[in-house]
């Protein structure tokens, strides 16, 4: 037993249990496997010695039922001041405290069986790790929704009302478009192409076709699995604007509700695969930090990549981007023409640019990817010059952000420009960081009195100005046209 809150420890009040149907939902997941095992062993033992040997299956079923029930018995949770405490385990006690102030996100997951039973699983993520830290499986649906709001509210200013249906839908994916996007992906094309080839081959050489099909069956099945996961995972995708972040709900058999918090975004990536471009579709991904450097010194950082929009129009994507990063649209410039010698394929789309708050770059030929990096999140700036670049007088500048994958690349720039970029980008990052530190409440994206968006410009010089994370940004609008005007920093 942990100690530390003696006052809280003393009282035994307020403990709550999970939903009584939890053992059913928990053990129920095993039912298909058990049935399969039962069928297989029945058939098998009948063939062997004429009678079924299924005793061990009965024992297995009983054991898992007992386990489920015991687990339910020993699991309890309650609020202790500003922490949520979850206790579980019969033999090995597991008691964890989740400080409400450090809760990053609360996801509701509803597997098929849980949906039938009307219960939901609550997953709580806390700053300091990338994985799920607290899990309450299962709660009644209404209770889960209520608790989620309570947890998220504890994270914020209590004066700010957190309700489940604030904000408007920012983007949604229709089933037709999802099907189209999955169909036009590499995996589907390989799958369909292989099957078509096999069908043709079957006409002429049935025996070869059968052999090849048998050989490829495992791969084809796994491809089909990937396609299925994409379809079922992103089915009925909807992103809604919430006060603490963009809330996402998706899923066919298992519904997932998750939140992408505004203040934790390290980078945003918009990917436009070749086959989607004729339709103007794109995919939006964000990298979110799960750990704070200050609290987890020496523990490394977990950064997760999430799909913010599995498929959508440029307009949807821009809308989300505006909400997350405050409509960053710095002017991008391509590298000098001689970069074509070094990067003949990717040169076509290559460009990069920056303004006071963001760096943005476009890379890739087949999958055109645009990456936005808020400079306040930059971890380091690097200049790299490879042996192919040196004779051409080119160099690449990277703006690194937390994690392994995300960075903004100013690829193949002129050496003089690259040198200047290193200085300017590190200086701008420093300024952005200071600005960010001075207003920690705003940086968390939590204490916003008003949600980010376009509002009448307080200075009166323009029609509208973008309000983001509790401060006015340099983005202004006049008669539907966007432009930038530097705003004097708020006191």
């Amino acid at each position, binding site marked *: 037993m942990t100690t530390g809150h003696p006052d809280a420890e003393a009282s035994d009040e307020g403990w709550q249990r999970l939903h009584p149907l939890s053992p059913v939902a928990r053990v129920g997941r095993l039912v298909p496997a058990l049935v399969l095992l039962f069928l297989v062993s029945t058939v098998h033992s009948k063939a062997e010695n004429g009678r079924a040997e299924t005793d061990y299956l009965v024992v297995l079923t009983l054991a898992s039922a007992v386990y489920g029930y015991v687990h339910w018995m020993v699991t309890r949770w309650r609020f202790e001041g500003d922490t949520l405490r979850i206790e579980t385990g019969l033999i090995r006690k597991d008691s964890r405290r989740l400080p409400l102030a450090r809760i990053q996100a609360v996801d509701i997951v509803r597997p098929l069986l849980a949906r039938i039973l009307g219960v939901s699983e609550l997953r709580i993520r806390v700053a300091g790790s990338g994985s799920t830290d607290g899990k309450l499986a299962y709660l009644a649906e209404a209770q889960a929704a209520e608790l989620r709001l309570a947890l998220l509210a504890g994270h914020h200013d209590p004066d700010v009302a957190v309700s489940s249906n604030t904000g408007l839908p920012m983007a949604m994916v229709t089933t037709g478009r999802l099907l189209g996007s999955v169909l036009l992906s590499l995996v589907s094309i390989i799958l369909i192409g292989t099957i078509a080839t096999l069908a043709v081959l079957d006409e002429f050489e049935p025996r070869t076709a059968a052999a090849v099909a048998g050989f490829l069956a495992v791969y084809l099945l796994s491809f089909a699995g990937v396609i299925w996961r994409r379809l079922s995972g992103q089915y009925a995708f909807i992103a809604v604007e919430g006060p603490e972040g963009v809330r996402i709900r998706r899923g066919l058999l298992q519904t997932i509700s998750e939140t992408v918090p505004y203040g*934790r975004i*390290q980078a945003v990536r918009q990917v436009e695969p070749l086959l989607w471009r004729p339709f103007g579709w794109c995919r939006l991904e964000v990298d979110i*930090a799960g*750990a*704070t*450097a*200050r609290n987890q*010194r*020496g523990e*490394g*950082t977990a*950064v997760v990549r999430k799909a913010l929009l599995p498929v959508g129009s440029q307009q949807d994507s821009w809308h989300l981007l505006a909400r997350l990063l405050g409509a960053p649209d710095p002017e991008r410039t391509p590298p000098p023409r001689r970069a074509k010698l070094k990067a003949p394929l990717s040169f076509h789309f290559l460009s990069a640019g920056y303004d006071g708050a963001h760096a943005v770059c476009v890379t890739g030929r087949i999958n055109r990817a645009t990456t936005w990096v808020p400079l306040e*999140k*930059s*971890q*380091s*700036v*690097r*200049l*790299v*010059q*490879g*042996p192919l670049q*040196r004779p051409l007088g080119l160099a690449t500048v*990277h703006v*690194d*952000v*937390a*994690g*392994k994958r995300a*960075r903004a690349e100013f690829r193949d720039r002129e050496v003089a420009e690259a040198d200047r970029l*290193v200085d300017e980008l*590190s200086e701008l*990052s*420093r300024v952005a*960081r200071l600005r*960010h*530190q001075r207003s*920690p409440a705003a*940086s968390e994206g939590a204490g916003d009195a008003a949600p980010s968006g376009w509002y009448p410009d307080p200075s009166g010089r323009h029609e509208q100005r973008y309000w983001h994370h509790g401060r006015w940004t340099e983005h202004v609008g006049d008669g539907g046209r966007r432009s930038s005007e530097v705003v004097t920093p708020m006191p």
Partner: protein
Amino acid sequence: MTVSEEPAWLRPSPGLWRMRRAEVGTMTALLAAFFGLVFLAAEGSTAGLVSVVVVLVLGAAFSWFVRRRYRAWRYQERHEDLLVARGVMVQRLSVVPYGRMQFVEVTAGPIERLFHLSTVKLHTAAAASDARIPGLEVAEAARLRDRLTELGESMAAGM
């Protein structure tokens, strides 16, 4: 704080070159002995001698390259950030703000310990940051570690 003159570029200790030279020398000697003996046994004394000469020439060429690589290492402690430059074929320059530092790691492998050297590595949340300075005298490594830690503490910024 007025921006005074930029502090000077610092370099790893000459001990790093001694260590690299010793490493290359040992490897060359071992390979020369091995190939020399193999060719001596298989082809005769002329082949053995030629193979030894070839290995020695390759070793000398490699040590020239290693020398250039050693000379490419340099670092500069500026007011707000640490600059680390390295590389001959691929030249790299990293600018790591002190405020972004998560922790400083000082390592000394068995060979480094023989030469009284250690490596200082600055970790940020980004895996790509790549701020490593090898071949520092133990005292210099300790000074750098303490200074970086101190600066990191005073300028720490969250994520």
